[in-house]
């Protein structure tokens, strides 16, 4: 498809010097952007202009730019990862915007994800939850042959659906309660669907949920917003599974 040129865009972006400073929106103009340009390349171009003008560039998280590392995290025009479905910000392209548009860019907003600088937030809370139980307790070596335990294709596929989570935090940023239930349930489901992970399923569900609560994430009220904005299409059916796993574990206590 032939690319067009967006002659002028207005970029309204959140600027915040550090975690303690007061942040505010700044407005910049940018001209002649090809619709084939990715959104983050547009920010690269804007940053180059800012540097050339002697201003500090906008700090934002990004790395693989292929939609898989989960590092990029922008809230664009009120949507996590911007106005397109099933993508991360780095996969968003400028063809989704009209010439003359004003684009508003904010960091993830959640109590558990404090801003570090500009659009960069601290997602350490996710790490803490995974460290509390998001694994199968197996050391390197001494494990059975890969084909020793057959796993049905359906179970493997369902586990894979849940394991596709990239840990970006869009679910938390989108949820009005800043709940991390989709993130936690994806890991719990992935491992609960596999025979290797069943063994610790109860312990895992309990410790991850306890840590999630401790880290200051809100409760789930079943709005389903997280599922809509998840770049990997993680289903809220996983939340139902997490609730079941958690309930069963608690009853056994």
């Amino acid at each position, binding site marked *: 498809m032939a690319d067009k040129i967006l002659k002028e865009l207005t970029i309204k972006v959140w600027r915040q010097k550090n975690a303690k400073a007061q942040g505010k929106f700044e407005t910049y103009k940018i001209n002649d952007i090809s619709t084939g340009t990715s959104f983050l390349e547009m920010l690269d171009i804007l940053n180059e202009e800012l540097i050339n003008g002697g201003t500090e*560039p906008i700090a934002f998280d990004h790395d693989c*730019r292929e939609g898989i590392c989960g590092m990029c995290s922008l809230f664009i025009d009120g949507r996590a990862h911007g106005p397109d479905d099933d*993508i991360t910000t780095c996969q968003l392209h400028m063809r989704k915007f009209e010439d003359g548009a004003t684009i508003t860019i904010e960091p993830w907003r959640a109590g558990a994800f404090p801003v570090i600088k500009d659009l960069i937030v601290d997602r350490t809370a*996710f790490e803490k939850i995974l460290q509390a*139980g998001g*694994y199968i307790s197996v050391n390197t070596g001494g494990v059975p042959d*890969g084909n020793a335990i057959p796993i049905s294709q359906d179970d493997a596929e369902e586990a894979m659906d849940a394991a596709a989570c990239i840990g970006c935090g869009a679910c938390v940023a989108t949820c009005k309660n800043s709940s991390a239930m989709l993130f936690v349930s994806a890991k719990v489901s992935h491992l609960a669907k596999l025979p290797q992970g069943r063994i610790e399923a109860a312990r895992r569900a309990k410790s991850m949920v306890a840590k999630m609560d401790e880290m200051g994430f809100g409760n789930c009220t079943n709005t389903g917003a997280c599922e809509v904005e998840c770049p990997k299409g993680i289903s809220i059916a996983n939340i139902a599974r997490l609730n079941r796993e958690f309930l069963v574990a608690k009853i056994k206590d």
Partner: protein
Amino acid sequence: MTVLNSKIPAGPLAEKWSNHKAAIKVVSPANKRKLDIIVVGTGLAGGSAAASMAEMGYNVKAFCYQDSGRRAHSIAAQGGINAAKNYQNDNDSVHRLFYDTIKGGDYRAREANVHRLAEVSGDIIDQCVAQGVPFAREYGGTLSNRSFGGVLVSRTFYARGQTGQQLLLGCYASMNRMIGQGKIEMHERNELLDIVIIEGKARGIITRNLVTGEIERHSAHAVVIATGGYGNVFFLSTNAMGCNGGAAWQAYKNGACFANPCYVQIHPTCIPIHGEQQSKLTLMSESLRNDGRVWTPKKKEDAIKLQKGQITANDIAEEDRDFYLERRYPSYGNLVPRDVASRAAKERCDEGFGVNETGKAVYLDFKYSIERLGKDVIEARYGNLFQMYEKITASNPYELPMQIYPAIHYTMGGIWVDYNLMTNVPGLFAIGEANFSDHGANRLGASALMQGLADGYFVLPYTIGDYLADEIQVPRIDVNHQEFIKKEKAVTDRMTRLYNIKGTKSVDSFHKRLGHIMWEYVGMARNEDGLKLAIKEIQTLREDFYKDLRVPGDYDAMNIELEKAGRVEDFIDLGELMARDALDRKESCGGHYREESTTEDGEAKRDDQNFTYVSAWEYQGEGKAPVLNKEELVFENVKLTQRSYK
């Protein structure tokens, strides 16, 4: 000159690793608790090594520049991981995987290392399954396999198009378990800027905390570099934006030899460049070549119409399509190794048969597979890749063939290591893509994941014990030792120098200039005049960099431009070394293609008489030419032949 001892064990090839394991020293559990190990990088190699060594009882300190260990660029590997399981009963074996890898690497890798890699490959799959990696399965519940380039068997295990992600999440989960138990001290957003050597041994690192800007000292009994490759020297590559050669370069500047820097892999199936302001190239998995057919038009007038956008691929009649890989390489067809496929695409485009507006693209067509297998099957196999392609290009690959072009992807070269994966600096180890040892001059598809995990799960945890067994009397290293103070000052001086240039041009502008020089002269085709010119141009670029760099923002706070400045400073030096190495190696081999050394039909021509060695470059100080050490490669088990995939 440093005398390099590869420490390859004696004895028959198939027994070397077991004999070596039996012969090396072991550290007792009580002593492991007293030993600290630093692991820099948390990809497949670093993550698996950190987790395994922590499980064994060592105290591990892990570092990554990202905000989480899970984001290392191993996550982006799509297609799969090789293992000699022979689950498909297609006569695969350890020896066949060994042979394919040696041949695929164009006979420029060590036999002993590659054989060990093939030996442990099966264990990796078992380990990953035990961790809960959701590999693709058959209806009967067994593991599924696919084929990859350069081989005639199906030995590649995969999890949709996200194999790297799932393997990384597996070892990251193991790391998380060890972090939770206090056996790994994790340092995110923290970047290595120097290595501390005390009395000839690696004893620690100096890092910059990327959130606060503080320079930090960290000590250990051994230091492991697992920071991946240096493909971003070209600016545009399939690497993540933050991937850099900094840690490897600091190892080099502290005395570790840098081996085969000119061996760079150019991946044939990437989305073509769309314009001057692009920051990153996207890979389309090699697995697509299982079911996609590569072609360009036979007639130049068709190509010209395609370039002008007057017709589409579907307007070109069947008989006017040139399936040039199937034509030139009938036995491997679309599954020739990456270096061969990349050069063939470049050849077609250079001849004027490119299919997009820049003339730098060929087709990868799924029409035939869709007709043969149905759209559902293709969607199940590659759905996420097709979606990714459509999001980027706004073109639907189910209806129009994909457009692809080669791009920089992987670096086979890296820090020189011996059989124990230790550099020539005692106590300094290098694993995964960061070392040079297993892929020779070209890496086969689905082998990077295999090597990273082999090094981290099953090789380093054993071999590091051989070194640490002699360190058990050494108390915890004091970070107030004068060498730490000296190195911290050196890092501060270096960063303040970059910050205080106060010139007019951004880091990226220099990086792009370097990328242009590298792609033009040290890219897919190289010759003597071009390489000499490249060295000269890089030297000019360096002078401009130190005169005119502009780093805005605060010095002692998060400063992304300052981070990038340090990385680009290293890339400039690394780029020059790559050109020097390419100039020295007058033969063509694997990904290194010297225009002066080709066969009559344009294939790479090796010169085994003069170049069957590893180039190991040794740093001599700033502004001085490095010294070239040579490790002769000895082949006792395979016969060197001109590689043929015809």
